[in-house]
């Protein structure tokens, strides 16, 4: 178990380091940053001043190691546009994104677990096909468009939910539903497949032979085993959802980390952009590690030699 943990940690660290390098290269793609920060009407003197003020006159490698060194101590630099520490900005906006991500995940689980179980129990019936169709429809749904449609119907015509902003818990319902749509197809299919596999296994036959009730067999024996991969994938899906929430935050004017990144891209505020890429990647890596650990704890066969 310990060697498994160490190996996983080393990989996670290497991935984070690679993403860090890529994020740095990404923000330098546009060539001369000082020119783009200064804007179209700047004089050469302005550009030179900016270049000096932000340390962009130093060799690229010096800038890179400076950034890495500071990031390791939790200092992600200073925003050009917001004139604030990037770490403070991200910390301020993170609760909104996390609330949105968790709301989406809970909605996705509440929908896809029962659907998946139902489809598995009634395998190859009309009901099963309906569930699979729902998964297909969810997969084809453009999230930003679904968001706008919900705004028109639930927000404007029925007046049930607020259209945008972050004032109360109701503000998170519509974006949560939209975000959940991206995870429902995968989670439903996985629950269904896991339940079908579990229902065909020897221990279920034993449970049946013992004369246990149908509900007890389904929920206590089959679901418990089918849930292991689902819980693991749910953690990974949360990582994807946090990364993908940028579109939904923009649609619903939720001022989370995605919105921050979106604003910063428009303002050429590259310290913020590279920091958000890094933070989201690190969260994803941490969540996948958590998923692997959960799997390893629940299923010793996965720990490997």
């Amino acid at each position: 178990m310990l060697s498994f943990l160490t190996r996983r940690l080393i990989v996670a660290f290497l991935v984070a380091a690679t993403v860090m390098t890529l994020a740095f290269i990404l923000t330098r793609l546009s060539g001369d940053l000082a020119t783009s920060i200064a804007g179209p009407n700047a004089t050469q003197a302005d550009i030179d001043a900016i270049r000096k003020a932000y340390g962009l006159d130093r060799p690229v490698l010096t800038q890179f190691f400076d950034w890495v060194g500071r990031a390791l101590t939790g200092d992600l630099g200073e925003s050009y546009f917001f004139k604030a520490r990037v770490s403070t900005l991200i910390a301020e906006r993170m609760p909104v994104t996390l609330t949105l991500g968790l709301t989406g995940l809970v909605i996705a689980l509440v929908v896809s677990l029962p659907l998946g179980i139902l489809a598995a129990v009634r395998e190859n019936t009309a009901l099963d096909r309906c569930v699979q169709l729902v998964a297909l429809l969810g997969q084809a749904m453009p999230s930003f468009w679904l968001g706008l449609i919900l705004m028109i119907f639930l927000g404007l015509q029925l007046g049930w939910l607020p259209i945008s902003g972050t004032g109360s818990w109701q503000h998170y319902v519509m974006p949560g539903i939209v975000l959940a749509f991206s995870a429902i197809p995968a989670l439903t299919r996985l629950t269904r497949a896991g339940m079908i596999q579990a229902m065909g296994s020897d221990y279920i036959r034993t449970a049946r032979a013992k004369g246990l009730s149908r509900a007890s067999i389904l929920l206590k024996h089959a679901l418990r085993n089918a849930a292991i991969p689902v819980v693991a994938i749910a953690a990974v899906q949360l990582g994807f959802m946090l990364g993908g929430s940028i579109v939904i935050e923009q649609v619903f004017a939720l001022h989370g980390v995605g919105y921050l990144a979106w604003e910063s891209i428009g303002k050429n505020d590259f310290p913020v952009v590279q920091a958000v890429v890094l933070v989201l990647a690190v969260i994803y890596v941490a969540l996948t590690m958590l998923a692997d650990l959960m799997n390893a704890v629940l299923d010793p066969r996965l720990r490997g030699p």
Partner: protein
Amino acid sequence: MSVVSLNAGPKRGWKSVSTWIGAVIVGIAMFCALAAPWIVPYDPFAQDLGKRLVVPFWMEGGSTEHLLGTDQLGRDYLSRLIWGCRISMLIGVTVTVVSGLIGIAIGVLGGFIGGRVDDAVLFAITTRLSIPVVLVALAVVGLLGSSMTLLVLTLGLLLWDRFAVVARSTTMQVRNLDFVAAAWCAGCSRFRILTREVLPNIASHLVVVATLEVALAILLEAALSFLGLGVPPPLPSWGLMIAEAKDYMFFSPWVIVIPGVALFVLVLGINLLGDGLRDLFGARTDT
């Protein structure tokens, strides 16, 4: 060359119906994409400020002159929709070609050689999955300026993961089969075994992945264009049409419903076709 089927499964009746629906949708989209310049009723770029937001024919006040109405600048909506289909399909297919080349090369290499090379391939896949696609694509386009070529290259460089995963796992399965061992014994070169024995046998799986990737690329392009950092205006990308019509959606919801439904139906059709092909080939796409 020998072709074997991995995990072949039976095909079910209703599945073939949905596959046909998918095939028809994709067929219509292909036709619209290829024939767009000749079948559009109006010039999709021509503005007519005297005829702004004309409603579609089935609504009160609509006429058959503009079947799907006009947008906020008086451009014919049906023409823009058809032209947008051309753009969606073009981006979907080109992105998949780029990502497919990268992913298949990486995956086959890892699965065929194994060992350290495979470790490196797995690491590359893990790293790629940890990168938030939408954010990075937005940043690249935002920093370098929006153009179709840049968009295709960016998405292609970001979306190769599923190709790599499937190419790697299927190559590993095929590598250990008897006919590959026979080819080794017959003294075939590595290159010959890769191109004549391995690739033909994993091709069906890759075709299924390709259909799903076209759908994903189309959805992502629409999302990026919606955020204003995808296809540059005045090109009528469906995502861009939704973004431009957003200000009018509360008074005339059809302006966002039409391009959205088109997008949804196209992606659904491609996915239905891909699912059908998967059953037909007995292919695996699970990652």
